[in-house]
């Protein structure tokens, strides 16, 4: 076709200043349009991009061209298909000057294969013509089609072969197997499947064609059934794969949304905090504070699934962490929390939490310790909370009045709900407040093991 174009050029294109005759311009328009030579458009293609190319070349809608092609297919009894394929062969793709045919000419094996396949079809059609006129009229043009397709398949560029692969994908149902063993197994399965469906097809068609007189009812029916099963066998895996792809796509979308959610959260919290930390680098206390607050927030989101704004407290563990949060924020002292087990709150345990909060705030205010440790353990019959610091400590015999008052409020609160509080302290040794609250039987929630030997 390239040569043809050059021929056109020679008689179409006189020197630019040589006074181009009107008819030549019209002819050139006809062949080259306004936007350049006729080229297949690989960006907007269903098969070879011929329709899209024609549409672009003539400046009409591609849908219109396709409708015309389909109507023409019916009117010409199928001759449009080989015409289309010839177009695919000879019209170069956009941005290129070489067509598939220029390569196919030198492909002797491809030529032989095309001829062989075409003759095979001819043979088949000769037999078929004896029985069914309809099949034959639509079948004959496809002799050309088969030859063209073979040549295109063997000689088109890789990207175009991709289109062909997609068109014949129904024949190949392999999912994305990665191991070579898996691939080999899958290709053997494909061969088996193809073989089985071919046998069914041949038997079905031959019954349809041959037996329609003697077994006038049974034959065509069985033939139809066989053809239908052949189609299912052939296309079934493809349909399955489409369904599977849909599911995969949905999963991918969900993952992308999740990633976006994480990204926005990290941006809202971690990145903002990092920016704040950079601004306040000269204030170590503030930096530590920011870092700890961020760590706590991130931890509760990652491991407990709580969003930053969620402050509702329904369990003992959440209550303890709320104390940690508040004391760290207000008194700028790190609070190390360890909880073992968890249970839902009732009024007694809420009182326990209030006492634990008092003890923690006390330690933060008075002890001067650099860190406060809060330990909570839920046992089957009781809940223990221990608040400990390594600070100044005090002599329990000689406590200042204000401190004694707080201590009393802890003691009193615990006693009112059936629990008890012990305070161990000595000057220079730090302080430890241990709060114990018995659990009532009907409390639901986490149940640690009852078979423990306990003190």
């Amino acid at each position, binding site marked *: 076709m390239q040569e043809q174009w050059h021929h056109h050029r020679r008689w179409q294109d006189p020197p630019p200043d040589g006074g181009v005759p009107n008819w030549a311009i019209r002819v050139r328009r006809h062949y080259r349009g306004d936007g350049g030579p006729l080229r297949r458009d690989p960006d907007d293609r269903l098969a070879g991009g011929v329709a899209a190319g024609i549409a672009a070349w003539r400046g009409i809608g591609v849908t219109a061209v396709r409708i015309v092609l389909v109507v023409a297919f019916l009117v010409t009894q199928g001759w449009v298909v080989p015409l289309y394929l010839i177009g695919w062969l000879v019209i170069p793709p956009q941005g290129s000057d070489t067509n598939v045919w220029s390569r196919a000419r030198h492909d002797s094996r491809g030529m032989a294969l095309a001829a062989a396949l075409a003759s095979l079809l001819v043979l088949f059609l000769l037999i078929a013509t004896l029985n069914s006129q309809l099949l034959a009229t639509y079948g004959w043009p496809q002799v050309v089609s088969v030859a063209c397709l073979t040549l295109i398949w063997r000689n088109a560029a890789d990207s175009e072969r991709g289109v062909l692969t997609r068109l014949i994908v129904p024949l190949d149902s392999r999912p994305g197997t990665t191991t070579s063993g898996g691939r080999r197994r899958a290709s053997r399965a494909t061969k088996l499947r193809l073989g089985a469906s071919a046998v069914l097809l041949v038997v079905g068609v031959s019954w349809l064609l041959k037996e329609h007189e003697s077994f006038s009812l049974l034959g065509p029916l069985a033939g139809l059934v066989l053809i239908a099963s052949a189609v299912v066998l052939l296309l079934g895996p493809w349909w399955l794969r489409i369904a599977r792809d849909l599911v995969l796509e949905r999963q991918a979308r969900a993952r992308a949304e999740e990633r976006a959610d994480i990204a926005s959260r990290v941006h809202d919290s971690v990145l903002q905090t990092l920016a704040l930390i950079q601004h306040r680098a000269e204030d170590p206390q503030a930096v530590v504070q920011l870092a700890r607050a961020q760590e706590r927030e991130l931890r509760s989101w990652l491991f407990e699934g709580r969003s930053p704004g969620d402050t509702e407290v329904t369990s003992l563990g959440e209550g303890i962490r709320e104390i940690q949060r508040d004391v760290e924020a207000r008194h700028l002292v790190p609070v190390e929390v*360890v909880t073992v087990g968890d249970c839902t709150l009732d009024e007694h345990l809420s009182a326990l939490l209030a006492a634990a909060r008092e003890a923690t705030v006390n330690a933060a205010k008075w002890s001067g310790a650099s860190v406060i440790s809060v*330990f909570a353990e839920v046992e089957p019959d009781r809940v223990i909370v221990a608040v*400990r610091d390594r600070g100044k400590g005090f002599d329990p015999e000689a406590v200042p009045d204000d401190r004694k008052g707080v201590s009393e409020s802890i003691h009193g609160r615990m006693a009112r709900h059936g629990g008890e509080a012990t305070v161990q302290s000595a000057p220079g040794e730090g302080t430890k407040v241990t709060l114990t609250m018995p659990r009532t039987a009907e409390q639901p929630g986490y*149940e640690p093991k009852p078979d*423990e030997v306990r003190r």
Partner: protein
Amino acid sequence: MSAQPRVVLVDDHGLFRSGVRAELGRQMDVVGEADDVAPAIEVIQQELPDVVLLDVHLPGGGGQAVITAVKQSHPEVKFLALSASDAPEDVIAVIRAGARGYVTKTISTAELADAIRRVADGDAVFSHRLAGFVLDAFAAAPSPQDVRPSFDPELDQLTTREREVLRLIAQGYTYKEIARELFISVKTVETHVSSVLRKLQLSSRHQLTRWAAERRLT
């Protein structure tokens, strides 16, 4: 044991590695670094350090992959796990693979150096958080359908004393403080902790896995 333990750092954050190296440099002999499972195994087998400081989370399979690979050929290399995120199931997995202890990345340099020395001397190092995890893991009662003949039922439970020691560790007590609190020697505290570690690693108890799985769900 030489005065300066030989240490290999395994962490995928270069920033963290260089920070630890700078801080530990004077007290430890940092002989190698690695940022992932495969290079870590290589450098450990080459250097044969006393202690490997091992991040729980590594891109190529997690800290336990390193431990499992090295333990086969060099069981004498000791591992101290550390991480920033400490999801309980990950930490327990690394300990069960064979790490001699676990500390968080927020640990101070002095404490880290102390922990490395203790691991090098063959002791176990539990951070307060790990102590909490272990108490939690061993606290959950085996459900009836989970009771199966155990190879050694002793391994499936903590003794009262071990439990007490763990509780005090969880409250931030040092071994010395625990010894004083419980009127026992520091050596005895270390024995209890090592015994807990052994149970943690050897227990065939299904519960440990199930507990971790449940933790992830809640």
